[in-house]
C-alpha cells in the first residue's frame, strides 16, 4: 500500500525504542476476520501469497522454471536481474548480467552462488553488528529470509541438517536477548552463543553453496547439499508451484447455471451428474503433481467459467491461461514448445463442438479424457467418470441475456450503437473473402459455426503450414471472460475489433469500431454473471452433499474406485474450505465430516461395505444437523 501524501501528512511514526518484537495477535485477528468476511486476501481455500524476500522469491521461481522444457528464459532473466540488483545494492558491486546466458546449468550455478553469498553477507553483518542489537536483528532477519531460498529443498534432502540449522536460527534469535519494555524484563545478549549459532549456518552455506559451488552434472537443478554429511541423495521432495503462482478461485464466484436446476429437477434423481460434478472438483482423477497441489478442473474453469486470475510462472504467458502440453504437469505429453492457451469458458459447451482451441476433439468425452490423461498425467479414467463429466458439463447453460432474441438477433431494447454494430457484424467484407463476422459466429447457432478457420492470429510452424486454424469460439458470455483469442493476446473486445480492422484492412471508422464493440458487449453480456455474496461455504457444503447422493448408484454398480474418489474428494474439499467458516467454533464439525469421509474411504478399500454405508449415513446426518451453521 502506497500512502498518499495527504495520508502521510497525518502520521508520524514513533519508535522511541525500536524494539524488534513483532506482536502477532492483531495480525491474527485480521486474518481471522478475513476468513469470516470471505472478501479478504487471507481466505483459507484462497491461498494467501507467501511473503518472501525478493531474492528468495526470484531464486525459487528460477529453480522451477529452469527445470521446465522449454525454459521460459524471460522469467529466469528477470529473476536473475532481481538477484543481481539486490547483490549490488548491498555492496557487492556490479556483476555481469545473465541476460544473454541460455545455459541452464551455468545460470543455476551463478544464482545459487549469489543467493548463498547474500545470505552469508547478512549473517556476517549480524556478527559484526552484535553490539548494535537492533541492527544485528535486522541483519539476521534478512539472512533468514534469504535462507528460505534453500530451505524447502533441504527439508527433505537433508532433514538432519535442516533441523540443526533450524535450531541455529532460533539460537541466534535467543542470543540477541531483549531490551524489555520500559526498562523491565531486559535480557542480556550472549555474544558467544550468537556466534556459535551463526557459525553453524555459515559453515553449512560455505561448504554446500560457497563460491566454488557446482551443481550436480545430471538430474534436476536444485540446491542439494551434497557436502553435508547427512545428505540423503535418494530423497524425494514434494513438487510445489513457484512463487508468483495464482490458482485461487474467483470471489465472488461466477454464477453457474445448470440446466437441470433451472428446470427444478430434484438433484437426488441425477446421480451421474453428481458423479461428474464431483469429478470436476476432484484432484484424485488426475496424477501427480495435480494431486499434491490439489488442482482440479474447477481450478481453471471455476464453476465452469474461465478463471481470469490463473497464473503459473513459466507455464503461463498471461493471467487466465497456461501451456497445457508442458513438462511439469505431464512430461510424457510435453510437446516441447511454449504454446499457452487462454482458458475457455465452458458455459453452453454442449453447443460449441468441436473442442480444444484448435478443435481437435470432436466430442466432449474425448476432450475430457485427454485433459485427464495427457494434459495432467492422470490414470485412464473409468467410464463412469467420463460419462459423469460429460453429463455434468452438458448441464452448463449460457447466462441469460435479455438483449438477445432466441435466434440471436438483438432485442428491441438494445442501444442504438449496438444495433448499428449488429448491422456491421452481418455485413460481408471483400477483405475477408466476402465473409462477415456472422459467417463464422452465426447468431442463430449460438454464434459458432462448428468449424476451424485460420484467421491469422496464430503463427504457424512454417510459411506454408496449415496449423494456424482454430475453432470458432462462441461470443455468448465473452464480456465476462477476457482476455481474448486463443492465447489471450487481446485484452478487450475493442482490441479484438481493432485487430480485425487492422489485419483485414477493413478501414472502419472510429464510430463503427465503437458500434461493433457495443454489439459484442451486448451479445457477450448476460445478467448476474457473479453470485451476489462473498460467502459461499454453505453452497459448497450443499454441493458436497450432492456428490455423495451418487453413492447408492455407484455402490449398486460396484464402482469402488469412483466411490473412493468421491470420499477422498469430499474429505479434501472440506479440509480446504473449512477455514472459510464465518464462525470458527464449527471447525470441529467440519473436521468430523472430513474424518467420516476418510473412514468411509478406508472401509471401502478394505471391503467393509456395511461400514461404508454407516459412514455415508453418518455424514448425511452430520450435514443435516449442521447445515444452517456451516456457512
Amino acid at each position, binding site marked *: 500500500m502506497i500512502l498518499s501524501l495527504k495520508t502521510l501528512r497525518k502520521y508520524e*511514526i514513533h519508535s522511541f525504542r525500536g524494539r524488534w518484537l513483532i506482536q502477532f495477535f492483531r495480525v491474527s485477528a485480521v486474518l481471522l476476520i478475513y476468513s469470516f468476511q470471505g472478501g479478504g486476501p487471507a481466505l483459507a481455500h484462497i491461498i494467501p501469497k507467501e511473503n518472501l524476500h525478493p531474492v528468495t522469491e526470484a531464486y525459487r521461481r528460477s529453480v522451477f522454471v529452469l527445470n521446465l522444457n522449454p525454459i521460459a528464459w524471460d522469467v529466469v532473466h528477470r529473476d536473475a536481474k532481481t538477484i543481481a540488483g539486490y547483490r549490488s545494492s548491498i555492496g557487492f558491486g556490479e556483476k555481469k548480467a545473465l541476460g544473454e546466458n541460455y545455459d541452464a546449468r551455468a545460470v543455476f550455478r551463478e544464482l545459487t552462488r549469489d543467493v548463498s553469498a547474500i545470505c552469508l553477507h547478512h549473517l556476517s553483518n549480524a556478527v559484526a553488528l552484535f553490539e548494535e542489537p537492533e541492527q544485528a536483528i535486522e541483519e539476521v532477519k534478512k539472512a533468514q529470509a534469504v535462507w528460505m531460498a534453500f530451505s524447502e529443498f533441504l527439508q527433505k534432502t537433508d532433514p538432519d541438517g535442516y533441523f540443526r540449522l533450524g535450531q541455529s536460527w*532460533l539460537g541466534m534469535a535467543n542470543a540477541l536477548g*531483549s531490551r524489555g519494555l520500559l526498562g523491565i524484563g531486559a535480557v542480556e545478549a550472549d555474544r558467544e552463543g550468537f556466534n556459535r549459532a551463526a557459525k553453524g549456518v555459515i559453515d553449512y552455506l560455505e561448504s554446500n553453496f560457497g563460491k566454488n559451488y557446482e551443481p550436480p552434472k545430471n538430474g534436476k537443478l536444485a540446491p542439494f547439499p551434497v557436502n553435508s554429511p547427512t545428505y540423503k541423495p535418494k530423497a524425494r521432495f514434494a513438487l510445489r508451484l513457484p512463487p508468483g503462482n495464482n490458482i485461487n478461485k474467483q470471489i465472488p464466484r461466477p454464477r453457474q447455471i445448470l440446466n437441470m436446476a433451472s428446470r427444478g429437477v430434484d438433484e437426488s434423481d441425477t446421480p451421474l451428474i453428481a458423479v461428474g460434478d464431483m469429478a470436476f472438483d476432484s484432484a484424485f482423477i488426475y496424477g501427480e503433481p495435480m494431486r499434491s497441489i490439489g488442482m482440479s478442473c474447477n481450478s481453471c474453469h471455476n464453476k465452469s467459467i474461465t478463471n481470469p486470475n490463473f497464473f503459473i510462472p513459466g507455464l503461463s504467458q498471461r493471467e487466465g491461461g497456461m501451456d497445457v502440453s508442458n513438462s511439469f504437469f505431464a512430461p510424457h505429453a510435453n510437446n516441447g514448445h511454449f504454446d499457452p492457451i487462454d482458458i475457455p469458458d465452458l458455459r453452453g459447451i454442449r453447443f460449441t463442438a468441436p473442442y480444444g482451441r484448435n478443435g481437435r476433439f470432436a466430442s466432449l468425452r474425448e476432450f475430457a479424457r485427454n485433459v485427464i490423461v495427457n494434459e495432467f498425467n492422470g490414470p485412464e479414467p473409468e467410464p463412469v467418470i467420463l460419462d459423469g463429466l460429460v453429463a455434468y458439463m452438458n448441464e452448463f447453460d449460457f447466462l441469460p441475456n435479455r438483449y438477445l432474441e432466441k435466434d440471436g438477433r438483438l432485442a428491441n431494447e438494445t442501444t442504438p450503437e449496438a444495433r448499428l454494430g449488429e448491422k456491421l457484424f452481418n455485413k460481408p467484407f471483400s477483405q475477408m473473402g466476402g465473409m462477415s463476422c456472422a459467417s463464422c459466429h452465426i447468431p442463430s447457432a449460438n454464434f459458432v459455426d462448428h468449424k476451424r478457420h485460420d484467421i491469422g492470429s496464430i503463427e504457424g510452424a512454417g510459411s506454408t503450414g496449415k496449423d494456424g486454424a482454430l475453432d470458432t469460439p462462441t461470443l455468448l458470455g465473452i464480456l465476462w471472460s477476457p482476455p481474448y483469442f486463443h492465447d489471450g493476446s487481446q485484452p478487450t473486445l475493442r482490441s479484438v475489433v481493432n485487430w480485425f480492422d487492422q489485419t483485414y484492412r477493413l478501414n472502419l471508422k472510429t464510430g463503427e469500431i465503437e458500434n461493433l464493440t457495443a454489439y459484442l458487449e451486448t451479445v457477450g453480456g448476460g445478467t448476474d454473471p457473479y453470485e451476489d455474496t462473498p460467502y459461499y461455504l454453505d453452497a459448497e457444503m450443499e454441493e458436497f452433499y450432492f456428490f455423495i447422493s451418487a453413492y447408492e448408484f455407484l455402490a449398486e454398480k460396484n464402482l469402488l474406485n469412483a466411490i473412493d474418489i468421491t470420499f477422498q474428494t469430499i474429505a479434501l474439499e472440506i479440509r480446504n474450505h473449512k477455514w472459510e467458516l464465518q464462525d470458527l467454533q464449527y471447525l470441529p464439525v467440519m473436521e468430523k465430516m472430513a474424518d467420516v469421509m476418510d473412514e468411509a474411504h478406508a472401509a471401502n478399500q478394505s471391503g467393509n461395505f456395511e461400514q461404508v454405508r454407516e459412514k455415508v449415513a453418518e455424514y448425511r446426518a452430520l450435514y443435516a444437523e449442521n447445515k444452517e451453521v456451516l456457512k
Partner: protein
Amino acid sequence: MSMSINMKIISVILAAILTGAAAFGEETKDQTLNIAFISYANPQQVAYDSEAILKYLEPRLGIPVKGFITLDYGSSIEAMRSDKADLAFVDPLAFMMAHEQIGAVPLLLEVYQNGPSYHASVWVRRDGSAAKLEDLKGKTIAYADQVDMSGHLLPRNVFNRAGLLRGNRPEGNFFKQVYFAGGDEQAIRAVLNGFVEAAGISQYAYLLLRPEERDLVMPIANSIESPSHLIMARKGLPEEVREKLKDALLALDWKKPEDKVILDKLYGVRGFSAASLSDFSEVAKIAARHGFVKNPDLFSE
C-alpha cells in the same frame, strides 16, 4: 526485510513533512484528539486503514481527531506520558505497565470472535510425541518474546499452574531448552518444522500458517483467559471526551456493513466492550511474578 526498509523510508519522509513534536503536542493539549495506532508489520497499511475510524470519530466527538503510528508499545506509552497521545491501542501487559507508571485508564476492550478475551496455548505437532504437558519434560519450547503476554507470560503460567515449572529460569527443571523465537509466526513455524517440540503462544497463532499447514499443529493446553487488547486513555483526558468516545465506539456493530468496513480496518476486531481495571486482576498477578507489574493490587476486584 522490505518492511523495515519501507519503515525507514517513511520515517524519513514523515520527518520532512511534519511540523515537529512541539507543534504536535500543543495541538493535543488544545483541541485535537491524538490516537496512537500500533503497527506490527506494515505501518503504511495501518496508516491507511485507520483513516476510516478517524473519519468516523471526528463528527461524533466534535473535535479534530488525528492518528499516528508507533512500532512498539513502549513508544505508545512514552507518547502518552508526554501528552502526545490521548488514546493508544495496546496489549494487556503494556496497559498494566502504563497504568502503573503513568496512570493510563482502560477504556474499551477489543472484541474478537469469542468476546473481549483471548488465551495462550501450548502448541505441538499433531504427529509429535507430546500429547500432554508432562510429555514435554526434557524437551524444547519456543516462546515469541520475553516481553509478551500471550507469547510468554501466559503460556509459561500454564506450566507453573500444572506444577511442572518452578523458579525464575525459563527452563526451570523441566525444559531442556527455551527459545525466544522473535515472534509468534517464528515460534509456531519452529514447531511445524520440528525445530522445537512445543511453542507457547497465542491461541490464534495457527492462523499465521498457510491453510494446508494448520492441521499439522494442535494445542494441548490453554492458559487462563486474558482480557483482549484494548484502547487505553491518557489519565488527564476529560471525562466528557472519554464518554463520547465510548459511546461512539460501542455503537459500532459488526453486523452493519458500513460499520464492518471500519472494524475490519481497525485490526479486524468485531467490536468493543467496556473495560475496567478489575478485568486485569488475574493477568496482573502473572505479570507481577515476572516483575513487569509492581503492585498487582491496583487491578484487584
